[in-house]
């Protein structure tokens, strides 16, 4: 009898060509929705403020001190001093806020570091990030160098521990780790490593970020779960004359002048100000300002997410409709077909058996439907709530 039931279920699905057509359309729609959702992109132009005044936007400074320009600039004995002055001027501007933030790997010495934490994990070159030096495993891990203004601006919070404060001791470099590091280190751990500014150094684990912590950096959302967040502080003497230290000094000060600007001024206005600062500091060629508009990017990201959720809703609704159509409606036909009853009765099936066959062929898809649709409905409700919340946030 089970074989007969399975045969009938398969038959009813196979034979309902209109429903199969609907299913095909739905599946097509679902795949299109998925594709659209994965490729929602907004033109960069959308994020460009055109007027003199715009909503608070984020601008990125990129120095042009590369190649011969770099050699020329650092041939001046007061080059570091000029960069330091530029950094001070940037920080003391009235018409914009300046955040020190720079994404650059640091080295942590530990055999426990996972590949995902390595700087080149995404590009697949993790072997370049790991080496054994003096019998110890050195790992070049993802690291975001920030000042506390950047921590505040991006609302980075520790789930455990806390960020450093300005009065931290100068023996260890305090770091806050992404949530993925929780299994590896604990608060208060002293970790050996290297920093690009100080060379060999000891880090102290000050805290762990919340799971899913992120910040906007150079136009994209950066998930910090696998990141080390370190202060843009140089522990060693900043005025060292040794050649190696001088090189580390250069890096340190270049990091400090390549941060981001939060301003309500337009790109042109900010660019003018930066050029004025550069001229004043004697940094030629002047630094270039590139608009990033973090605030707008955030809105765009929210819109993307909102659109994505809307598409998710469409996908889930389509799937529910398809499943209900394909599984339930064909079986109504079996239940209503008197001929089917007669044939089975003529061939020695009892009334109980005939009823059981019809009931089971109806109930199996119904149960499947309830199970699948129930799960999907739950997802649908969650998506609806999330979408409503996002809509309110956007508005």
């Amino acid at each position, binding site marked *: 009898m089970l074989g*007969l039931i399975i045969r009938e279920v398969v038959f009813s699905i196979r*034979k309902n060509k209109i429903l199969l057509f609907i299913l095909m359309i739905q599946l097509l729609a679902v795949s299109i929705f998925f594709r659209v959702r994965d490729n929602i992109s907004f033109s960069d132009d959308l994020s460009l403020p055109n007027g003199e005044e715009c909503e608070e936007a984020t601008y990125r400074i990129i120095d042009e001190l590369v190649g011969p320009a770099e050699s020329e600039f650092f041939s001046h004995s007061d080059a570091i001093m000029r960069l330091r002055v530029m950094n001070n001027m940037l920080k003391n501007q009235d018409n914009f806020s300046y955040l020190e933030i720079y994404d650059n790997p640091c080295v942590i010495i530990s055999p426990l570091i996972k590949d995902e934490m390595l700087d080149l994990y995404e590009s697949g070159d993790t072997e370049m990030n790991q080496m054994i030096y003096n019998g110890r495993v050195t790992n070049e891990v993802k690291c975001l160098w920030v000042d506390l203004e950047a921590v505040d601006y991006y609302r980075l919070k520790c789930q455990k521990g806390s960020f450093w404060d300005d009065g931290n001791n100068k023996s260890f470099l305090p770091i806050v780790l992404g949530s993925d590091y929780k299994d590896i280190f604990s608060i208060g751990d002293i970790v050996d490593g290297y920093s690009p500014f100080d060379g060999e150094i000891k880090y102290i684990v000050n805290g762990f970020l919340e799971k899913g912590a992120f910040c906007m950096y150079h136009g994209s959302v950066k998930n910090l779960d696998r990141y080390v967040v370190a202060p843009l502080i140089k522990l060693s003497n900043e005025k060292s004359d040794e050649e190696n230290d001088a090189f580390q000094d250069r890096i340190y000060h270049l990091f400090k002048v390549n941060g981001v600007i939060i301003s309500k001024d337009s790109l042109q206005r900010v660019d003018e100000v930066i050029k004025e600062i550069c001229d004043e500091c004697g940094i030629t060629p002047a630094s270039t300002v590139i608009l990033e508009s973090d605030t707008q990017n955030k809105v765009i990201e929210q819109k993307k997410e909102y659109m994505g959720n809307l598409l998710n809703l469409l996908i889930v609704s389509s799937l529910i409709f398809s499943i209900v159509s394909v599984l339930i409606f064909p079986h109504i036909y079996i239940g209503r077909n008197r001929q*089917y009853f007669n*044939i*089975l009765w003529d*061939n*020695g099936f009892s009334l109980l058996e005939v009823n059981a066959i019809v009931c089971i062929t109806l109930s199996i898809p119904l149960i499947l439907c309830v199970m699948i649709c129930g799960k999907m409905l739950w997802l649908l409700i969650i998506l609806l709530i999330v979408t409503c919340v996002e809509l309110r946030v956007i508005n």
Partner: protein
Amino acid sequence: MNKEILVEGLTKTYNVTTNIQTVLDNVDLCIYKGELVALMGASGCGKTTLLKILSGMSEPTKGDVYLRGERVDYSSKKKRLSIRREIVSYIPQTYSLIDEKTIFENTIISVRKKEYKENYYEKVYDILEYLGLDNKAESFPPFLSSGEKQRVTIARALVDDKEIILADEPTGSLDEKNAQNVVWRLKSLAHEYGKTIIMATHDEEMANMCDRKIYMSYGKIKEEK
């Protein structure tokens, strides 16, 4: 010759309000193995009732039925059902085909025997080929002639490979040519495969093609030829 169907003193009465209506009155019958017997008579003479009792769809008021030498026990529904499950195939007056299923699917619609798992499809196709329906296996009933439809119901009766086939006016709605074709198939089934077949009909011409004719009138066997 083996007495495949033996009916002794079969009586069937219905209580209609206070009246007792006798549909079969003390019927005696003997059908041998491999015989195609035409059960003749006017409408309402009791042909269908007799076939229904023989197939276990109905129980007699009095009398005994022996199928393949064994007395049929009508005391429970289960035992009556076992007749159609194990011994008797019943071909109804109407085609009883499901338009949405192919001929092949209509043929196997009620199959549940485990042995059909092996060479299952081959066996079904052999039956369809025997009945001249092999090229229609994937067609749907609306595209078949009435004769072909009736042959599908015969095919369904053969799929279970039962020894006794009871056909209730299988040619009733067919034209002469198709009716002859159906009877010819039934006859070859009886003669080539040893099936015992009772075919209820009121068509004299079709009955003439059978091995034997049994005439019924008002619930009694009148004559055998």
